[in-house]
């Protein structure tokens, strides 16, 4: 059964800017600077390890410098949610029956780290996690602050979290349990993620180049995004979530099976659930982390499903890998570009297919009307998700 639910009230904040218009403006004719390595930032905690870097390249959300962790965290997220709700056209009564589905990987860990750091300053024996622990603390805060329905949940499935939150909310709408849902993606800078990826040696020191022969890792990014999901089509052109699938992969904790089998399986199931065939897909928004194994698995999976590959675009080179927020955030960036009539390109990245992966990325903004798009997300813990959307 396909979902056929519609997105409206899209709001997002990434390193490219705030709101749909700023994102479309940046991506229509992207400057070379946008694809360069972002500025290195000094993290709130410096490590004692001699080989630990003092600074790490990071795509921070635009115009929000790092200061006062707690204020910054809530300001970024609340502003995006507030903007989404105020442009949704839903009445207060409708909002009070709107369920909030949060997709995040790191959740409020930046606050947990800051809290522990502050307590250690006063007491060297202070305990970490000296607060109420729930993966839905942020979700509960947002439901209360914006007087939303008590129904809803947080999805914490690493890099697929907000894509999965979208699927869970779509199922709740399709089943009649909700008329509307607000989906929120959140990923704010924290040292666990930053130093964790540093420890895994997955960070590039050059630039993020998915599927490219020169790829050597990813750049970290922050993002906050929010959108309303409803069964009723809005009066303006919008994204329709036709369907999707999420499947688990027992191959490895930190990468999908590089033979592409598990990724091909989730794409095929997403297409089937959406009642579309591979030939119906006009474009693919790749997961494209620019890590060696993940790009290998994704390219193999795509080639197994598509006899002829459609236009492929990758958005992480612009905003970094925003982990749990990436599924929704990248979908809303596509939304912004499609509102302006184009699919974005990444000039100079995977212009020629590398012999091993055989994937070329879209190089320039390409006009596209009413396309059907496959959006991929793959995450730690063997969680693979594909969404199928149509714009129009």
């Amino acid at each position, binding site marked *: 059964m396909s979902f056929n639910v519609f997105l409206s009230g899209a709001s997002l904040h990434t390193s490219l800017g705030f709101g749909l218009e700023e994102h479309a403006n940046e991506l229509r004719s992207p400057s070379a600077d946008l694809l360069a390595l972002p500025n290195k930032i000094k993290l709130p905690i410096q490590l004692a390890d001699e080989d630990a870097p003092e600074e790490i390249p990071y795509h921070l959300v635009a115009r929000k410098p790092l200061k006062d962790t707690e204020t910054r965290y809530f300001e970024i997220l609340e502003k995006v949610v507030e903007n989404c709700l105020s442009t949704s056209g839903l009445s207060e009564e409708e909002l009070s029956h709107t369920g909030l589905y949060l997709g995040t990987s790191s959740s409020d860990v930046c606050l947990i780290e800051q809290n522990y750091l502050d307590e250690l300053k006063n007491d060297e024996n202070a305990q970490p996690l000296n607060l109420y622990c729930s993966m839905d603390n942020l979700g509960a805060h947002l439901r209360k602050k914006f007087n939303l329905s008590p129904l*809803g949940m947080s999805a914490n499935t*690493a890099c697929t979290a907000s894509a999965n939150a979208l699927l869970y909310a779509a*199922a709740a709408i399709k089943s009649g*349990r909700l008329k509307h849902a607000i989906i929120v993606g959140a990923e704010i800078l924290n040292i666990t993620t930053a130093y964790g990826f540093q*420890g895994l040696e997955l960070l590039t020191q050059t630039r993020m180049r998915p599927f490219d022969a020169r790829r050597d890792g990813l750049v970290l990014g922050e993002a906050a995004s929010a959108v309303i999901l409803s069964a009723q089509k809005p009066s303006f052109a919008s994204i329709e979530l036709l369907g999707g699938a999420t499947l688990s992969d027992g191959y490895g904790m930190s990468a999908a099976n590089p033979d592409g089998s598990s990724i091909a399986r989730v794409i095929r199931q997403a297409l089937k659930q959406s009642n579309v065939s591979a030939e119906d897909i006009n474009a693919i928004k790749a997961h494209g982390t620019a890590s060696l194994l993940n790009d290998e698995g994704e390219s193999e999976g795509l080639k197994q499903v598509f006899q002829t590959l459609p236009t492929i675009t990758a958005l992480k080179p612009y905003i970094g890998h925003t982990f749990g927020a990436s599924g929704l955030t990248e979908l809303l960036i596509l939304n912004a570009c499609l509102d302006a009539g184009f699919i974005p390109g990444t000039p100079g990245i995977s212009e020629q297919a590398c012999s091993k992966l055989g994937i070329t990325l879209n190089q320039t903004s390409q006009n596209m009307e009413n396309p059907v798009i496959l959006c991929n997300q793959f995450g730690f813990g063997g969680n693979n998700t594909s969404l199928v959307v149509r714009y129009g």
Partner: protein
Amino acid sequence: MDRKAIPIIAASGIEYPANEEPDFKAQIKQVFGKQIRRIGPFIQMALIGAADSVRAAPLPEATNVYFTSGSGDMDVTIDVLHRTVRDRQIPKPLSFVNTVSNAACFYLTKYFSIGGSTSFVSTREFALESAFFQAMTDMSVLDVETALVGSVDILTTPDTTHRTRVGSAPAEELAQGSHWFRLARSDTSATPIGYLVDTSIFKDAGSLIDHLKPLLSANCFITFGNRADSSNSQKMINELGAQEYQAQKQPAGHYGTNCGQIFRDYLHREDTSASQLLYVQQNEQGHLSAVLLAKD
């Protein structure tokens, strides 16, 4: 039975009070015939707790896992926070990877050959309820044949900080547990041990009563979570005409998903046939969650 009710064909789990120190490594070896290296108590408890539900009958390809926790894998988070914030060291790669909430899902997939999706979902103060809600929702609209709904909550130290982490009062007993429920489509050939009739969250007692009253049978038990307000509870007992449930084995102590113990108690006892069990919990805001189970 209501045609929308979802058969529960197995329930399993483990639970330990704070004064017991179970040997999870030995239990893992007993369940799987070998050790599983580099996993902590949270993932160990997930695997041990789920095993009997998984092995109750062959798992179909389209089996989804809906995993949850009140407080998550605090053990691995504490380890990473000690290392980074206190000791100023890079986190160990495996510890970092295991901080993702769905890390246990990888091991469930690998060791139980899960062919469908795995997810980690939670709602603050209503963790197991949210997993039941999503499983029930997906089974009603997607082609999901079997859902494994499960929870794990672990103990940490020191005791006083643990109470803050899990929202427990100073005098309350503490415990840890892992509870699993295997849901099947209504056309299943397996004999159900009970049914999941409904699960939802309500703004107040009035809306809960309005929604649930039409679903309740004459022989309905009701039980409340530790945060349920006594005046609300009495109102629900009176207006729903339900009798208070006396569990044969109460939860051993407080943890975020200890309602799983009550559900297992109800599903496994022999003297509750042709009845229903309504479990109600309350959150900080006064919202109420409800899970309604039934037995033939």
